């Protein structure tokens, strides 16, 4: 890292001037300026679709800017390619991972930068370096595992490790904590501190105010593809940032939800899944309250609600809905029973991106007479209903005939939520409801949940973001290693207690 020290302290490591980028019909970036200094963590802040990822893609050479200049380390750079970017020390961690699912972690780490001799790979050398890197980062990652066998959190770790392989001068992190839990997040923050000490510049994108507070040196706010302002983090408030970002004042608190627990809607007894990811779980959820499930990465919290909905095969145990046994769950039957599931991965499991929003929203309700009779669609009625729903959810832009793929992350989530309003439902299963959506959209989602419980629905929220589940839920289950480790209610519901149950095993293991 010796070369970094001769960079003039005052001269930024990265200097962008007047960067513009158009996609067919959309101006994603409009004359944006950005400076990043060596040893600084620079946060990009903006709503969904503000152009953060696009800017990052320009910086990392994925696609060229339409106009503007690009200086790195004092030199003007033209015709940046991903390869060149890596060569000069720009390392991105992408929001949509740059991992090949069918390759192993190690193969992915070295993708594009393999150690080779005349085109022949030197596998042993790469294995050695990969192991060394993963150890250094302290990630729990097996370099020989295939990426598609990993949970999203582990994929995120692999993506981060990939960026840190080789010499790094500018590290770019696009929502790196979106699917990490406390422990990994802690690791990552330690790492960030270390890199800053080594004079590495960082660009960091996140929708979590807490992180911005903890990490940022400076914040650049983008809105609608334009640079709004760059501020010193220390001298700005959350409210100020949010106002700059959205153009209006937003109250940043979680909504106050009045829980009125009623009859038990979902009751799970001794549930064990075929793949062993959930074992002997007993839990219940009542109407009129939000039941939270927290836990470390891979603890089985997602699998649990997926099993209730019918997406994960059950080995043994009983699921009861509204007191009646529900055998062999399947999505279609779950919906008929009034159970809806909102997947964490909206691209893979939620939306048909190239179809209109209208079709995406009505997808779960096509068996209802309101949407189809005798197999014939009632398109006029559909249009009216969905338009109404999307107005209630304040979809932006409100045109329901656009394809779902044209929406920003938060608005995609709204389309998913819209499904909940198309039919009579009593149980709502949310998996990571706020992953990747901006502050404003998050609040709207919370408001949505509030309305649901207050109308008497049973809501189950699975989340890796601890403050979120703590604030939203009435009762909180903590899962560990496929089992329920604790049930917390009322005053017990503190971050301290949750973390204690998270790490109970490890602590005992370390003592032993």
């Amino acid at each position, binding site marked *: 890292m010796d070369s970094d020290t001769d960079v003039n302290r005052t001269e930024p490591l990265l200097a962008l001037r007047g960067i513009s980028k158009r996609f067919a019909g959309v101006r994603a970036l409009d004359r944006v300026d950005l400076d990043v200094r060596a040893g600084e963590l620079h946060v990009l802040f903006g709503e969904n679709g503000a152009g953060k990822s696009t800017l990052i893609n320009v910086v990392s050479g994925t696609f060229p800017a339409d106009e503007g200049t690009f200086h790195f380390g004092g030199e003007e750079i033209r015709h940046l390619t991903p390869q060149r970017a890596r060569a000069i020390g720009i390392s991105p961690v992408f929001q949509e991972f740059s*991992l090949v699912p069918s*390759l192993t972690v190690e193969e992915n780490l070295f993708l594009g930068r393999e150690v080779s001799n005349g085109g022949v790979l030197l596998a042993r050398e790469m294995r050695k370096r990969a192991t060394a890197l993963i150890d250094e980062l302290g990630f729990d990652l097996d370099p020989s595992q295939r990426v598609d066998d990993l949970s999203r959190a582990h994929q995120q770790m692999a993506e981060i490790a990939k960026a840190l392989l080789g010499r790094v001068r500018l590290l770019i992190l696009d929502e790196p904590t979106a699917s990490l839990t406390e422990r990994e997040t802690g690791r990552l923050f330690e790492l960030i501190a270390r890199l800053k000490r080594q004079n590495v510049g960082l660009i960091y994108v996140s929708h979590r105010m807490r992180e911005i507070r903890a990490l940022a040196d400076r914040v650049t706010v983008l809105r609608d593809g334009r640079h709004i302002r760059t501020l010193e983090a220390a001298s700005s408030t959350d409210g100020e940032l949010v106002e700059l970002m959205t153009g209006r004042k937003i109250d940043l608190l979680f909504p106050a939800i009045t829980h009125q627990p009623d009859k038990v809607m979902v009751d799970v007894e001794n549930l064990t899944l075929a793949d062993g990811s959930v074992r002997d779980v007993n839990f219940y959820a009542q109407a009129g309250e939000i039941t939270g499930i927290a836990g470390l990465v891979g603890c089985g919290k997602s699998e649990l609600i997926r099993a209730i909905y019918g997406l994960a095969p059950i080995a043994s145990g009983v699921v009861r809905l509204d007191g009646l046994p529900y055998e062999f769950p399947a999505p279609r039957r779950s919906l008929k029973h009034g159970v809806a599931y909102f997947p964490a991965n909206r691209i893979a499991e939620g939306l048909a991106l190239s179809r209109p929003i209208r079709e995406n929203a009505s997808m779960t309700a096509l068996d209802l007479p309101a949407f189809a009779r005798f197999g014939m669609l009632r398109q006029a009625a559909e249009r009216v209903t969905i338009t109404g729903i999307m107005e209630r959810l304040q979809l932006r832009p409100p045109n329901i005939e656009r394809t779902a793929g044209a929406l920003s992350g938060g608005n995609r989530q709204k389309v998913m939520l819209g499904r909940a309003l198309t039919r009579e439902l009593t149980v709502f299963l949310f998996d990571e409801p706020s992953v990747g959506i901006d502050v404003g959209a998050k609040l709207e989602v919370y408001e949505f949940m509030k309305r649901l419980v207050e109308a008497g629905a049973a809501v189950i929220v699975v989340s890796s973001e601890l403050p979120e589940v703590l604030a939203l839920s009435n009762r909180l289950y903590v899962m560990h290693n496929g089992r329920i480790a604790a049930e917390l209610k009322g005053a017990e519901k503190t971050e301290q207690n949750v973390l204690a149950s998270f790490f109970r095993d490890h602590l005992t293991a370390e003592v032993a």
Partner: protein
Amino acid sequence: MNTALAAARPQPSIGLQSIVGRIGFLPALLVALVAGMSAIDPQFYGIINILNILRNASFLAIVACGQALVIIAGGFDLSVGAVVALASVVTAKTMAITAAAFPGNNALIIASGVAAGLGCGLVVGLVNGFCVAKLKVSGFVVTLGTMSATAGVGLMITSGIPVYGMPDVFVKGFGRAQVFGLPTAVYIALAVIAVMVFVQRRTLFGRYVYAIGGNVDAAVVSGVSVQRHIVGTYVVSSVLAALAGILLTAQVGSGQASFGGDRMMLQSIAAAVIGGVSLRGGVGRIEIVAISALFLTILGNALNLLHIDSRLQPVFLGIIMVAAVALDELSRRRKSRV
């Protein structure tokens, strides 16, 4: 702390099931087929029959290796059959012409013929690769187009009449010859398979082919030059098809525009897919594809040896093919997730 966490995560059980799942259970099926046939009919393991099987499997395996590579990179090569035919007639024609110009100079004659044949493969491969990688037309359509065009050129050259006039050494001394008891084609196929396995496992090219098929976007942002490697897969596929065409020509002793065709194309894709190559790209291993080519060849041979009415043979072939893949699929179903 690390170890504690790692141990805490439920590990996928490593048992017989998962081992079969990893290799694909094709090898097991192959062994069963060979054992069954040997028990039923001693002709089956007669030396000549085995040599026939090996030689015919060699042609298919060579073509299927290239096909597999293209499919792993996320493409499709429908033109292989037509390339086999074109390489055959061009090789024979070139040899005939060179022989007329330089009578007796066998080394030159054979070299020019083989070079011309492989050259055809190279050209078709480059055209395919260019259209897919640069013009971004889907591989299916591009190769459908070049299939038609290549077959047309082959027929234009010959009018469908076989081309003779290749030197005897090429036919008797190479095409029909045996070395250490095995036909020459088998050695060439083994060499091709070995090289391809090496390429796939140990070289940048092989690694990038997997990456491109597995996730193009990831490959691009990781700095892999996608276009070059896609062109590479189509070139390898076409050149290997041309090689198979030349070997067939050497064996038969004449250049024929009827070689290959739809049959070879469908069979090569079938061999790849039955050998575990995913049509979505990113997955597949050459050695299993080679085994699959052997499996398909033995299946055809078995149906003949079992004296099954040749009109009904396709029925059996179809059912066995579907059953094999369905069983494989079901055995893998256990570890499936949505």
